[in-house]
């Protein structure tokens, strides 16, 4: 079982990313579980969400304490949260991280380019989900279907694009 933690700011869509990836995992024939931050979110505040993926039914419901992978939706988060996982996927042009495996993608730019903006924030969830799907070894199709389940119309299209770009663009960082 893989345990994943997503760190994002409220409004960035960390919870949705977890859901998308859970659906994508189901599409991959796996079992999955997406757990949002337990609590009151306020736009702008740090949000922790969790994702579990497994070949077998997932029974536990507690939060993820020692993630195998951590996804970081904004570099600013590094100032307020310790990122401890073997693998990290980060929205960054140039991640300053020393974890064992660091993957990075400039999700903000992808979102801005596509006009995925709300209240001034680039909505990076689908891009980050794309990057994570790649790191997790999912077929892109699985994620695409998931996006179609949650978004519709033009928004779905844009988000698929964002995910696709990130899926293709995510890179391993060698510090």
């Amino acid at each position, binding site marked *: 079982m893989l345990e994943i933690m997503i760190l994002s700011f409220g409004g960035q869509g960390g919870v949705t990313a977890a859901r998308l990836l859970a659906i994508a995992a189901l599409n991959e024939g796996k079992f999955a579980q997406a757990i949002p931050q337990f609590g009151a979110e306020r736009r*702008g505040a740090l949000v922790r969400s969790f994702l579990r993926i497994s070949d077998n039914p997932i029974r536990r419901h507690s939060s993820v304490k020692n993630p195998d992978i951590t996804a970081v939706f904004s570099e*600013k988060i590094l100032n*307020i949260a310790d990122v401890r996982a073997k693998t990290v996927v980060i929205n960054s042009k140039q991640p300053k991280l020393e974890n064992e495996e660091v993957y990075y993608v400039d999700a903000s730019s992808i979102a801005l380019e596509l006009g995925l903006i709300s209240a001034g924030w680039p909505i990076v969830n689908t891009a980050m989900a794309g990057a994570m799907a790649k790191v997790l070894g999912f077929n892109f199709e699985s994620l695409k279907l998931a996006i179609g389940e949650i978004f519709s119309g033009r928004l779905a299209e844009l988000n698929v694009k964002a995910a696709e770009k990130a899926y293709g663009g995510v890179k391993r960082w060698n510090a």
Partner: protein
Amino acid sequence: MIAKPSKGSAGKTGLWRTFKPVYDVEKCNLCHLCWLYCPENAIDVLEDRIVIDYDYCKGCGICAKICAKKAIEMVREEET
């Protein structure tokens, strides 16, 4: 559990900003409006200027909107 008055009860909310209010003392006429309408109480009025507390300013942009003198401008925060 009893709570006592504390700045930053939600932490350093300056981190929430995507846009940052930038102040131009030249244009300011010290009308106090930004101070009155800052929902975060992140603005102080000194003798000759206002001061924005960037530790807590959330970048809502109300101060910039309310300033008739356009002495506050919202600029995109750098990702750091």
